[in-house]
């Protein structure tokens, strides 16, 4: 995966409004005004968010001049999922060892409260 794209994806996702926009687009294409509806936000402000998402490759926009529908692109999200997955493997493996260590410690301390 391109590191630049992963960077852009993380930056784009670092905002709750943009995440909400993506969640909305997961349901289907939408226009800018449709996307702006749930937010207390001006159209230019929403357009700014869309620009960030578009630059990150998370959305594409239709070519029609009037109604440029936004569409979710899933590939960058899959890259992120891959990144998260490496962390998952790391922690799961640590927790396997933690599980063993806890057993060892409890054997050493004996069962039941010591007081």
């Amino acid at each position, binding site marked *: 995966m391109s590191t630049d794209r992963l*960077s852009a994806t*993380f930056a784009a996702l670092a905002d709750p409004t943009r995440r909400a926009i993506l*969640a909305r687009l997961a*349901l289907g294409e939408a226009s800018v005004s449709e996307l702006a509806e749930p937010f207390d936000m001006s159209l230019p402000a929403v357009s700014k968010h869309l620009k960030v998402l578009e630059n990150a490759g998370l959305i594409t926009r239709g070519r029609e001049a009037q109604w440029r529908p936004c569409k979710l692109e899933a590939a960058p999200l899959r890259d992120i999922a891959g990144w998260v997955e490496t*962390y998952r493997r790391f922690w799961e493996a*640590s*927790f396997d060892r933690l599980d063993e*260590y*806890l*057993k060892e410690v409890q054997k050493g301390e004996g069962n039941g409260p010591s007081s």
Partner: protein
Amino acid sequence: MAQAASARDEETFELLITRVFDAPRSLVFRVWTSPEHLYRWWGPKDFTTPSVKMDFRPGGAYRSVIRSPKGVDHVMIGTYREIVEPERIVFTFSWEGEEGERGMETLVTVTFADEGGKTKLTFHQAPFQTVENRDSHVEGWSGVMDRLAAYLAVGNHAGLE
């Protein structure tokens, strides 16, 4: 329906792991709190932990080094944000690069719940922005980008080879 989409979206970039340990909560909490315990389990199988430094209090920093079976060191650094004994530990987490630069910061929240003598551990990790970044939009995003660039510049941590 929108909620379902939102939940699915969250899962793609946040890590949530739940695990039940057959040990009392006070003990599970304790093994997160000092180097003598962390040496014994921190890091995947066959990794060693040459160094753990931790100032276990809110605002205190930690730095721990784990060594892969191939002899490659990986350095984890961060700051404790919140400590509620024996329920919760919140800390920032980054990989440190070879020249001491800090990789992208994530926020980790570990919760310990008592379940009839066993302990349910909930582990949550997500990309994290500092308050300064969150409050300054333009600077904030470029700050995130800088940290990511630094993180990615130190190489691929994926396999931890």
